[in-house]
C-alpha cells in the first residue's frame, strides 16, 4: 500500500488500549454537538427555503400574468350618440338580412357616419377616440334592429387602444387627460370584451382576439393526436411485447430515448427541411405544424406507454396464453386495456407539452400575421403560443394586457389537461 490514497497506518502490534468510554459531557463535546445541531437546522431551513422560493417563483409568475391579463378581457367603451336618420344611409332594408348585410352597411358609408358622429360629439379629434372596430358595434346593432336607421340612438362603442390603456391607468399623459375629461362627463364605461374570444389577430390592440390562434391550435393538435397516439401506442406495444432482443430493437430504443431529449427547435428544422423543403407542403399550415409536433410528441407517448405496459403483471399474459389466446389477442384483449389509463395519462401530458410549444412552429412559418381563423388543415394559421410570442413583440402598449390575457387562456387549458392527467393517474392507478 505504498502509493495508495490512504495514509500509512503504523502497524503496531501493541495490545489495544483499555477501553475508556467517550466522555460526552465535556465542554468541547457539548459545544460540538450544539454546532452540529445548528448546522442541521441550517440545512433543513435551506431545503425548506428552496421549496418555498420555487413555489413563490411560480406564484409570482402566475400572479403577474393574472394581474396584467385580467384587464385584457375588459374593454373601455365610450357612449356615442349617432343620428342615423340624419345620415340618410343609402341602403335598402331588404339588404339588412343575411350574409350581404355587413358589406351593404360598409358600402353605404356607415364607418364615416360613425366617425363623423364622434367628431361632432367630442371635437375634431373625436374620431381618434374610437377603436377601428367601433363602427362594427353600430353595424351589428343595426343588423339586430333595422329600425335604428330611422332614428337617433346612443351606442356604447369601444375606444381606441391609447385611450383604453389610459383608462386602465397606464397611458401617456395626453391620453390620461382625455380619459379624465371623458370620465368627468360620465361618457366612459367598461364591459366584457367578447371580441377577444371570438376574433383573430389584428393590428389594432382593441380588436385582437384569440379565436384564430385557438382554432389553429385545435387543428394542429388534432393532427398531432391522430398521428402521435396510434404510432406511439403501437411502437410501445411492439417494443414491450414482441420485439426480439437484437441490434435493430436497440437502435429503435436508442432513437426513441434520444428523440425525447432532442431540443424542440431541431424538430422545427426537420419540418422546415423535409415537410416544406422536400415535400413542398404549404407554409404556416396546421397540417405541417401537427406533423412536426407529432414527431416530437410520439417519443413521449412511447415512453409513457412502455412504462404502463410494463406495469401489467406477466401473470395476466400467462393466464390468457394458457387458455389458447394468440399473442396478438393477449395484447389487444388484455394488456392494452389494462395499460390504457397510463398511456392516456402520458398522451395528455405529451399533448399539453405540444400545445405549449412555440419554437418548432416558428421554423415552419406559423409566425405570420393571420387575420382570419383557418378553415382547413392547409390554410395559413397560427397557434396560441405563437400568437403570444407575436403580441409580446408589439410595441403598442395595448398589446401587453392582451398578451397576458392570451397566456391566461393558454395556462387554463394546460392546467385543465394536466388536471385530467393527474385525475386519471389517481383514479386508475393500480397496485399489482
Amino acid at each position, binding site marked *: 500500500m505504498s502509493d495508495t490514497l490512504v495514509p500509512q497506518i503504523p502497524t503496531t502490534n501493541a495490545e489495544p488500549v483499555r477501553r475508556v468510554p467517550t466522555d460526552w459531557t465535556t465542554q468541547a463535546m457539548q459545544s460540538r454537538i450544539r454546532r452540529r445541531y445548528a448546522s442541521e437546522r441550517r440545512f433543513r431551513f435551506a431545503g425548506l427555503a428552496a421549496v418555498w422560493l420555487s413555489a413563490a417563483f411560480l406564484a409570482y409568475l402566475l400572479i403577474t400574468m393574472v394581474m396584467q391579463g385580467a384587464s385584457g378581457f375588459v374593454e373601455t367603451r365610450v357612449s356615442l350618440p349617432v343620428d342615423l336618420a340624419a345620415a340618410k344611409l343609402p341602403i335598402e332594408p331588404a339588404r339588412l338580412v343575411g350574409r350581404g348585410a355587413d358589406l351593404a352597411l360598409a358600402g353605404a358609408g356607415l364607418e364615416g357616419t360613425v366617425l363623423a358622429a364622434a367628431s361632432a360629439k367630442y371635437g375634431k379629434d373625436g374620431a381618434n377616440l374610437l377603436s377601428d372596430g367601433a363602427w362594427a358595434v353600430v353595424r351589428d346593432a343595426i343588423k339586430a334592429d333595422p329600425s335604428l336607421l330611422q332614428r337617433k340612438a346612443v351606442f356604447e362603442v369601444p375606444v381606441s387602444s391609447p385611450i383604453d390603456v389610459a383608462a386602465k391607468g397606464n397611458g401617456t399623459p395626453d391620453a390620461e387627460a382625455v380619459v379624465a375629461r371623458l370620465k368627468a362627463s360620465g361618457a366612459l364605461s367598461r364591459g366584457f370584451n367578447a371580441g377577444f374570444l371570438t376574433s383573430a389577430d389584428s393590428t389594432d390592440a382593441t380588436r385582437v382576439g384569440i379565436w384564430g390562434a385557438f382554432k389553429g391550435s385545435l387543428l394542429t393538435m388534432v393532427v398531432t393526436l391522430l398521428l402521435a397516439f396510434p404510432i406511439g401506442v403501437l411502437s410501445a406495444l411492439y417494443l414491450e411485447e414482441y420485439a426480439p432482443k437484437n441490434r435493430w430493437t436497440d437502435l429503435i430504443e436508442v432513437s426513441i430515448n434520444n428523440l425525447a431529449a432532442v431540443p424542440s427547435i431541431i424538430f422545427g428544422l426537420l419540418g422546415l427541411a423535409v415537410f416544406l423543403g422536400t415535400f413542398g407542403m404549404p407554409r404556416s399550415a396546421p397540417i405541417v405544424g401537427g406533423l412536426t409536433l407529432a414527431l416530437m410528441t410520439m417519443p413521449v407517448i412511447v415512453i409513457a406507454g412502455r412504462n404502463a405496459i410494463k406495469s401489467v403483471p406477466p401473470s395476466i399474459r400467462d393466464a390468457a396464453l394458457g387458455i389458447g389466446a394468440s399473442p396478438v389477442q393477449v395484447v389487444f384483449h388484455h394488456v392494452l386495456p389494462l395499460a390504457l389509463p397510463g398511456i392516456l395519462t402520458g398522451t395528455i401530458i405529451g399533448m399539453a407539452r405540444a400545445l405549449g410549444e412555440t419554437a418548432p412552429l416558428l421554423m415552419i412559418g406559423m409566425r405570420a400575421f393571420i387575420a382570419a381563423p383557418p378553415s382547413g388543415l392547409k390554410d395559413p394559421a397560427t397557434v396560441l403560443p405563437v400568437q403570444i410570442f407575436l403580441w409580446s413583440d408589439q410595441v403598442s402598449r395595448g398589446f401587453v394586457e392582451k398578451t397576458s390575457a392570451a397566456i391566461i387562456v393558454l395556462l387554463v387549458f394546460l392546467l385543465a389537461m*394536466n388536471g385530467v392527467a393527474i385525475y386519471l393517474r389517481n383514479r386508475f392507478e393500480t397496485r399489482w
Partner: protein
Amino acid sequence: MSAIALLFLVLGLGLIGWLTARVRATRFRAGSTVRFSSLPSHHGWFVALWTAVPPLIFLVIWSMTSPALVTDTVLSTPAAMQLPPPGFDRASILSEARSLAEGRSFGAFHGLSRTLAPSYAAAQTRYDWIATALALLLAFAGGAFAFTRVKPGFGARTQVERVVMLMLLGASLIAILTTVGIVASLLYESARFFHVVPITDFLFGTHWSPQVIDGRDPGASLGAVPLFWGTFFIGAVIAMIVAIPFGLMSAIYLTQYAAPTTRKWMKPILEMLAGVPTVVYGYFAALTVAPAVRDFAVSIGISWASSESALAAGLVMGIMIIPFVSSMADDSIAAVPSSMRDGSLAMGATSSETIRRVLLPAALPGVVGGVLLAVSRAIGETMIVVMAASGVATLTLNPFASTTTVTKQIVDLLTGEAEFDSPKTLAAFALGLTLFVVTLLLNIVALRVVKRYREAYE
C-alpha cells in the same frame, strides 16, 4: 376527386369487405360443427385489409410522385417554353401557377403563371382521375382476391395477425425514420453551408454578424464561437447556478424532511413550473425580470447594463429547470438503499450529516447524470432566449452584458426574409447540427451514467 373523399371511399370499400366476409364466414360456421382457428371477424379483417391497404399504399406513393408528373406535363405544353431557365424565378412562377390552379390564391405576381394555370388545372384533373381509377381498381382486385379465399379451413387469423405485427413494427420504425430524417436534413443543409463557409471559420471564428455578410468571404462574419460561449454561459452556467441548488435542496427537503402530506402537495406544485410553456417564461423574462436585472445593475454602478442581459435569460431558464433537476435528484436519492440511511443514523449522525456524507455521495452519479440532462435541455431551450436575450453576439464574462445563443440565432436567421439557400439560412442548419450533436452527446453520456448508477443498486 379530392384526396379526402377518395380516402373515405377506400375505407368504405374496406368496411363493405369486412361486413360481407363476416357474413359469409358466419354462415359457413353455422352449418358446421368443426372448430375453426379463425373467427368470422378475422375473415372480415382479412378481406378489409386486402381491400383498403393496397390502394392506400398506392395513394401515399402517388401523392409523392404526382406533383412531379403534373409539372412535367405542364412543362411540355407550348406555354411553358417562355419559362425562364431553372432557378428561383422558374420555381416561384410554377408554384404560383399551381396555387392559382388549385384556387388557393387569386392574384398573380408573374403574368406567366396566369397562362400556365389552366394547363396546370387540366393536368391535375387528369391525374386525379387516373389516381381514382387505379385506387378503385386495386381495391376491387384486392377485395375480390381475398373474398375467394374466405373458406372454412382458411387461417385468416394468422394472416391478419401477421399484418398487425407488421403494423407494429412499422410504427416503431417511425422513430428511426425521424432520427434519420433529422440527421440527414441537418447534414445535407450543413454540407451545403460548409461548401460556402469553411468549417474551421464557422467553428473557431470569433466574429458573428450575419446581418452584414461579405460575399467574398462569408466565413469572416459567421464565426460561431460567441454563440457557443453565450449558449454555454446562459444555459450551463447561469441557469445551473439557479437550478442545481434549488432543485437539489427541494428534492432533499421533500424526500428527507417533509411530512407526507407536504410532499404530496408540494411536489405537483413544483412540477407545474415545468408545465408552464416556455413562451410564458420568455414573456416573463422580457417583461419583468430583464428590466429588474438592468435596474439592479445600474444601481450597483454598471450604467451600460443591457436590458437583454445574459443574467435575465439565465435566471428564468434556471427557474424553469428547477423541477427537472429536482425530480432527477429525487429519483437518485430514492434509489439509494434505505439501509445506508439507517446505517448512518444508527451511528449518531444527524439527518443533514447523513444526507451530505452518505446519501449524496452515493447518489452523486445519478445527480450528475440528471444535471447533464438538465444542461442539455437548457442549451436547447429557445423561447426564453429568443424573447429575453440579445441578438448581438459578444464574447463576455459579464452577466449584465448582452449575449446571444445558438437557438436564438437559428430563429433569427430563419425568420428573416432571406432565400432558402443563402449562407444565412444554411448557417441556421449548421447551428442546428452543432446543437443536435452536443445535446445528443450530453444525453448519451447522462443516460449511461444514470443507467450504470441504477444498476449498481439493483
